[in-house]
């Protein structure tokens, strides 16, 4: 958000006040937005699928229809990492290792894309994995660097590509290789298509969301926000800033309001489809 607002502010001709509402796996900020006035003066940048997870697994009071969607910002694919001296150098090797040994896998949160990726790999190959929530991206990174876990699931941009030589990238939960971490194969490259969501790609979206009702009650404001937000991605200063952000420019992926809503619905659909996988994990633990 802070990368985007300087340019957006210029285009919109108004100042942004950025507030951070952490906690509850994004639910604290989500409810803040849900309860805000639908006047076009409050918006949020939100992570997906954490958004859907808050109502699927945490009883958040809102649903898809309670918000208006302005557009996506970027998509960071889910990726598996391992300590540098691991006896495997891709996910296929890790799966073989985990068939013979008890293995630990660190994830960034109990109910997001990293948890789902770990659980889908575990279920697909019937592995005896101990999946541990490391409490965020830096927790996973530290555990991988310190060799505390056998593998960690994060996103390449969140993990920081500067570590490319210091850790082993086992593979990304996608059919095609992603751009940000060139040494990392995709699950598709490794022939692991039997893992669900490889073709669709499992990752974390960042998107801009408004309280529901802005589009209907203030179509002019919605239009202005939508046009200026789209224009941000064409702006040279914004593009230069994203290049300075550790390769953020490589994962920028803008989609307009309608396509964003379709993406939100599709994500909700697959999260619902695999909800029992995450619920079983929570109850088993």
């Amino acid at each position, binding site marked *: 958000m802070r*990368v985007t607002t300087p340019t957006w502010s210029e285009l919109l001709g108004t100042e942004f006040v950025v507030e951070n509402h952490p906690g509850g796996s994004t639910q604290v900020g989500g409810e803040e937005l849900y309860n805000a006035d639908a006047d076009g003066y409050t918006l949020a940048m939100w992570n997906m699928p954490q958004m859907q997870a808050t109502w699927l697994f945490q009883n958040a009071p809102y649903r898809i229809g309670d918000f208006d969607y302005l557009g996506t910002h970027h998509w960071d694919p889910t990726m598996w990492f391992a300590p540098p001296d691991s006896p495997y150098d891709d996910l296929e090797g890790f799966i073989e290792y985990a068939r013979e040994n008890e293995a630990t896998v660190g994830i960034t949160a109990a109910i997001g894309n990293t948890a789902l990726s770990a659980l889908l790999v575990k279920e697909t190959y019937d592995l005896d994995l101990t999946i541990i929530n490391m409490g965020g991206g830096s927790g996973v990174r530290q555990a991988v660097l310190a060799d505390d876990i056998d593998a960690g699931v994060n996103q390449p941009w969140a993990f920081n590509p500067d570590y490319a030589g210091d850790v082993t990238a086992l593979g990304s939960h996608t059919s095609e290789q992603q751009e940000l971490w060139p040494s990392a194969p995709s699950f598709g490259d490794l022939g692991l298509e039997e893992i669900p969501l490889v073709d669709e790609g499992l990752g974390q979206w960042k998107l801009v969301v408004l309280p529901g009702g802005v589009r209907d009650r203030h179509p002019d404001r919605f239009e202005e926000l939508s046009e200026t937000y789209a224009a941000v991605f064409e702006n040279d200063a914004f593009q230069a800033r994203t290049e300075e952000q550790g390769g953020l420019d490589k994962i920028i992926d803008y989609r307009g309001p309608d396509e964003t809503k379709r993406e939100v619905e599709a994500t909700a659909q697959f999260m619902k489809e695999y909800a029992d996988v995450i619920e079983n994990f929570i109850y088993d633990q």
Partner: protein
Amino acid sequence: MIEAFLFPATIADGLGVLANPYVLLAILLGTAIGVVFGAIPGFSATMTIILFTPITIPFESTTALIFLVSAYGGAVYGGSIPAILINTPGAPGSVVTCWDGYELTKQGRAVYALAVSAIVSGLAGLIAAAFLLVFAPPISEFALNFGPPEMFLLAVFALTIIPAAKGASLSKALLAGLFGLLIGTIGNDPQLSQPRATFGQTTLLQGVDFVVVLIGLFVLAEVFRLAHRGATVTADENVEGGMSEVYEAARAVASRPVGFLRGAFIGTFVGSLPGAGADVANFVSYNEARRWASDELSDRFGTGVIEGVIAADSSNNATQGGALIPTLTLGIPGSGSTAALLGAIALHGLNPGPGLFDASGEIVYAMILSLFIGNVLILVYGISGSRYFGKLAYIPIRYIIPAVAVLAIVGGFAVRNATVDLYIVLIFGLIGILFIKYDYPLVSLVLGVILGDIAESGFVTGWLLTGESVTAFLFNSYIAIGLLILIALSLIVTVVKD
């Protein structure tokens, strides 16, 4: 993994950056603003960084980041001013400063305590900055060895300080500490993100913010105590409050180099551990100072001995340099403040992590070198200001009580802009009064709340990582064994003394 990065040429470039008058102005302003905001109860260094980060967006990156780093250092020091004057920690890292600092104020020695606080804060900050400059890579590597089991044991070690807190009874201190741990369990559980005891309040998914607890327990409870006592200072009001007190403060620090250096090193090291900040460091430092003191002096800790102020304030400011070590070299924040700073660093186009010194060495060295100027400014602001801050202790309580009560309410709300926090402030204000009435130590409760999250996350994650084996968990590494020995020694000493 991380190569040494002490490049004289780059340091010279960094010094060149500092020669810019705008950068120097940023350090001057940032430190001053940090001191002022840090002194507001409930306004921590983390909140100061978060508040000012958006304001720095239009500025050139180096100037902006140096401003934020300076504000961070100023805010950590600023938290000690109200701790000494009105028994109200301005920030979580100043809780322990109250114990002897406020006792000195009550004896009419506020200027003396404030000057000591400024001197040890500035000097310890300089030592930590030097460590950051020279030893960042090896310390980063070592800090990585503190995995979840070690963090749990570190939290337990800090919890063993509870019975030693201000000479309270062992059973009451432990009960208060356990109650604090119980409060720490409110919110989403760290492993499965399932809500616990949130009473339908979304804000509580994040848990009870310990700054809010601090404000309730210390500020509101102290307002009632003040009303009961009738004045802040109980000693003769004609006590010298001028330069003589400042000179005496300088002599006090100079004659206790071991205590000061011990606090500075504890602060630097604890600060470099991910998740443990100034709040943990000053408890550990105070406990160690008390443990190493003679029996006679140890018994007087908490009654206004200057060794207590030195232990607390030499450690909390040193955490800044320590916490920046994993932040800059690994991209892993060492504290809440450095987590906020990490966001600001990324916002200004730098990429914290192993490549940072190669890619942006000039800016990073300028940031590190600015710590030296910032800490010298803390000395200047603190020593010159202490003579004037000290006069606040003589303001009639009819002015102090409403002003402090308003600050408490505003500060409690400002932490998260959440209405529920106002009720929490009030509830803990009442709990504070009950604790004082029945002689339960407030600090034990606070320490339990602070350490609850670190202990629980460390235990659960460590337990799973070590295959749910008690022995593997406890003997995970030489560091874990060392911590176990320290815990055992701490308990034995406490029981014997009790």
